[in-house]
């Protein structure tokens, strides 16, 4: 019989397999050298579940602390992945971003996101649990805002995106947005919303991983614009010659 727990565990299993495919594809195409933090992030997410499962069998208190420590590490690494995406997209622009600039941006966003999360949070419950919810929500808002800021900049300037950074931004952005939305829905419903939250969270993450697989697969190192024919330049530069003189 299919119960909620069964569905969730099956989905986690599928998620694990998809993660292995993503890691293998990234490694096979040599992209782990260009995107080291994304590669480490995927490895971390992959090994996290079995570790937590093993600890849960032994000690529930140890599981609680290990879970939140690993969650904090995953969040930290996810911000490094976002920084990696920023660097790839803004590499040759005047907005060339340094770690200190990115850190400042994150601090600014953290303040705004924390204020928003505090306003949104409506769940009554233990203080620790509420603090965790607010912090998780803050992180998600920050992640979504970082991707949205980069996308708005890209729409305005028409930045060039390679396949992998775009796939990472799209997949993670969709996942974080969905999770944020469902978390609010759960807050409104109370404990009844837990199942919807758990299933949607896992499902949206799998969609994100599928997006990553697709964009890693489509990644090409070479671009046709590199071999532009010289005689064609005069055609489009012609109308500008008068103004340049």
């Amino acid at each position, binding site marked *: 019989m299919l119960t909620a727990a069964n569905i969730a565990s099956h989905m986690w299993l599928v998620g694990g397999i998809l993660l292995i495919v993503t890691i293998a594809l990234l490694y096979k195409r040599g992209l782990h050298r260009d995107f080291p933090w994304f590669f480490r992030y995927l490895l971390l997410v992959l090994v996290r579940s079995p570790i937590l499962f093993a600890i849960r069998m032994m000690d529930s208190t140890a599981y609680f602390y290990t879970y939140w420590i690993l969650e904090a590490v995953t969040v930290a690494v996810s911000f490094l992945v976002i920084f990696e995406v920023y660097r790839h997209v803004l*590499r*040759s622009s005047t907005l060339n971003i340094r770690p200190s600039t990115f850190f400042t941006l994150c601090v600014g966003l953290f303040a705004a996101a924390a204020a928003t999360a505090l306003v949104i949070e409506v769940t009554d419950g233990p203080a620790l649990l509420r603090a965790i919810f607010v912090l998780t929500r803050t992180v998600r808002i920050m992640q979504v805002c970082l991707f949205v800021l980069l996308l708005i900049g890209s729409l305005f300037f028409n930045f060039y995106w390679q396949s992998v950074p775009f796939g990472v931004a799209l997949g993670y952005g969709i996942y974080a947005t969905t999770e944020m939305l469902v978390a609010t829905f759960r807050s409104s419903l109370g404990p009844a919303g837990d199942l919807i939250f758990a299933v949607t969270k896992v499902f949206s993450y799998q969609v994100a991983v599928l997006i990553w697989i697709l964009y890693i697969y489509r990644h090409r190192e070479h671009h046709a614009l590199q071999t532009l024919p010289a005689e*064609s330049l005069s055609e489009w530069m012609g109308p500008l010659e008068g103004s*340049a003189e």
Partner: protein
Amino acid sequence: MTIFLVEFVAALVVLLVFFYGVRKYRRQLRSMEDFRARWKAVDIEAFANIIDPSEERFLRESLSPKDFRRLQRERLHVAGEYLSRVGQNAQLMIQAGQIIERHNSGVEAERARAHVRDAMRLRGLVFRAQCSLAVQKAFPVSNPALEQALRLYGNAAHSFDNALDPGVVTARM
């Protein structure tokens, strides 16, 4: 429930940004032919004439206020069209420069990088001029932002010509 609705709308806006992002990504430059097909011709002289303050002064003095307002509206509409084309060309320049910078090294990469910087500055100026134009449509006056954008467009187009000098590209090939 109100909070949920607000967040739902915010999430929809975010997803809309991602949707436009995907559309833009799928329409990235593929080749030089693609670049040429998207390039919008801009008659710089006609544009300069449209935004020339002395031309505007002349029209203001020669025409009746009613005729001047009608003509000025048309002139501003045409100026807006030109600005839109220059903006799109600046965007094309940015992407082409980034692609060339990414897939080349040395002098070509450095030139492409400098060109991207110029094109980005131009894009910003075009945006400023577009905002200024919107205000001017409501209150017709001469527009220094438009003139500055025009001057920069000429410079950026020239520097792009140098960055993609046929000699340099064929030598590399």
